[in-house]
């Protein structure tokens, strides 16, 4: 009996169900590069306290870019107006603190909710048409919102922006300090939680169906995926995320500039995502780091012309090719590539045979 039992166990532990479960488990295991990234982000709280403001800026831009990645990399929508949700979140957070309740987490959630609502409503417009139509639709919505904010000066402060509100301590406990340390920790925590949630979403059955629609829309329909309703959901989630990012900017600076709705925000965040790579979530974070550092570096060496250099980098990236953007590492010599891949994709758990 024992022998039979053991044999059965041995067979089932190498059976296809087991292999399938192992592969699916590894699919969403944390990669080494993710863990390193978060540990470094935490370490920077202590190692670079004087750079807290810059780090906060990176964290906020990263969240905004993660949001755009949900739209571009998972819903397949090229948006030139993603700043609409960012700007709306920024204004809502400011107005909420001013007129209702100064506690930032509450304000953050309200801002996300309002942006999400706009995302939900506009998603139906974005579902229609070709890539170019979508580009124009998203751009148009963002322009309208910017103009609206400008016209409604009684509410938004118009060209002067929104100021004169105070942001209370986080959860009533942690005061924002002058050096931006609390602001960075707050932004980092929000970025982490948002990325963690996004990670779960894209690794779920829902996320798989989004990738399927991207990979082959015809076949996705023929296995029963209702592409449109799935896109509405992810677009709405992305809008919530952008609203969070906008709210973070308001809360960490205690000011809303009309600049939050400016066109360059939408363009910048697209550039960030192109720099970091589309469709794997961390592209937004890595892109935000590269973008902010590049900008700072260029603006020190050529204060007048840093946009020129950013533009040049963009052109080079685009010339190198859309596919290659996300595979820049394939230009490295093969042994380095292999080592990088092994290190970056290292995950806990047993090795499985087959692919590399």
């Amino acid at each position, binding site marked *: 009996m024992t022998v039979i039992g053991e044999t059965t166990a041995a067979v089932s532990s190498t059976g296809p169900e087991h292999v399938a479960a192992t592969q699916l488990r590894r699919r969403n295991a944390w990669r080494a590069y993710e863990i390193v990234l978060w540990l470094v982000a935490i370490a920077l709280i202590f190692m670079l306290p004087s750079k807290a403001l810059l780090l906060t800026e990176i964290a906020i831009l990263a969240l905004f870019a993660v949001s755009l990645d949900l739209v571009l990399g998972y819903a397949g929508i090229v948006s030139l107006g993603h700043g609409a949700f960012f700007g709306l979140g920024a204004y809502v957070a400011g107005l909420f603190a001013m007129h209702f309740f100064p506690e930032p987490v509450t304000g953050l959630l309200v801002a996300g909710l309002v942006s999400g609502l706009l995302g939900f409503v506009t998603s139906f417009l974005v579902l229609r048409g070709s890539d170019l139509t979508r580009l124009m639709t998203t751009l148009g919505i963002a322009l309208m919102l910017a103009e609206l904010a400008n016209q409604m000066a009684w509410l938004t402060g118009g060209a002067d922006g929104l100021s004169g509100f105070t942001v209370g301590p986080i959860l009533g406990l942690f005061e924002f300090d002058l050096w931006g340390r609390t602001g960075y920790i707050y932004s980092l925590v929000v970025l982490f939680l948002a990325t963690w949630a996004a990670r779960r979403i894209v690794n*779920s059955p*829902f996320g798989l169906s989004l990738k399927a629609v991207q990979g082959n829309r015809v076949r996705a329909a*023929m296995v029963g995926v209702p592409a449109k309703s799935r896109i509405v959901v992810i677009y709405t989630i992305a809008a919530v995320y952008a609203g969070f990012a906008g709210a973070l900017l308001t809360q960490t600076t205690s000011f809303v500039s009309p600049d939050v709705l400016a066109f360059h925000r939408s363009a910048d965040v697209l550039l960030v995502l192109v720099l970091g790579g589309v469709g794997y979530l961390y592209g937004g974070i890595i892109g935000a780091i590269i973008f902010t550092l590049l900008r700072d570096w260029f603006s020190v060496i050529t204060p007048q012309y840093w946009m020129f250099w950013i533009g040049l980098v963009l052109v080079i990236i685009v010339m190198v090719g859309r596919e290659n953007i996300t595979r820049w590492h394939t230009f490295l010599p093969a042994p380095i590539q292999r080592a990088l891949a092994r290190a970056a994709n290292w995950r806990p758990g047993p090795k499985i045979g087959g692919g590399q």
Partner: protein
Amino acid sequence: MSAVLQTRNLMKRFGGFVATNDVSLSVEQGARHALIGPNGAGKTTLINLLTGALKPTSGRVILQGEDITDLPPHQRVRRGLARTFQVNQLFPEFTPLEAVVLAINEREQLGASAWKPLVRYPQVVDEAAALLERFGLSDVMGERTSRLPYGKQRLLEMALAFAAKPRVLLLDEPAAGVPEEERHEVLAIVRALPSDVTVVLIEHDMDLVFSFADRISVLVSGALFTEGTVAEIAADPRVKAIYLGEDA
């Protein structure tokens, strides 16, 4: 005798060209129904009309008594109408495992679940593994689909359609382009499909058609030319002429 899938005066025009010409077809429950005809006869177009990949110019499609003409493809799949494609339509970046899990998820209405990872649906995982094994794909379940040999890709085509647990399965030249040595594997799978699934098969290999089908419809220039049992079609000199004339 009850028809599970019917078309009524189905018509498809591409500009001035009539690709489907007044086709009224009836497929019986549990049938092995072959659809034959020379290249360009409109067989694939007919499948596209049945599954909603194309909208008919006029006419109706009826599945189990329900008019599905105006339903989008994904809702037809949910009602039990699945297909394979003559030219592979797969997810190049997915592994066969991911693709099959996707198809099972959608059938089980789990596709909108956005929180738990795939591995946390053990019934889906087990079913996917069993399905991959049945379709001879378990040894490559972790490879990228784009890297699979063509024969394996054809098997995945069928596995994806089959994962929907269809009542009616439309197979558009399942062995098309498969090298001779991998062909028998594909054909064995077709032969082994469970008898409660109604199968509509498009195929050029007459030996396979005659051994597999219980009913045959012949399509010529978009119209239904003739229809009958295997014996009737095999004995029909006009059908022979059509195929010999085409020197296939």
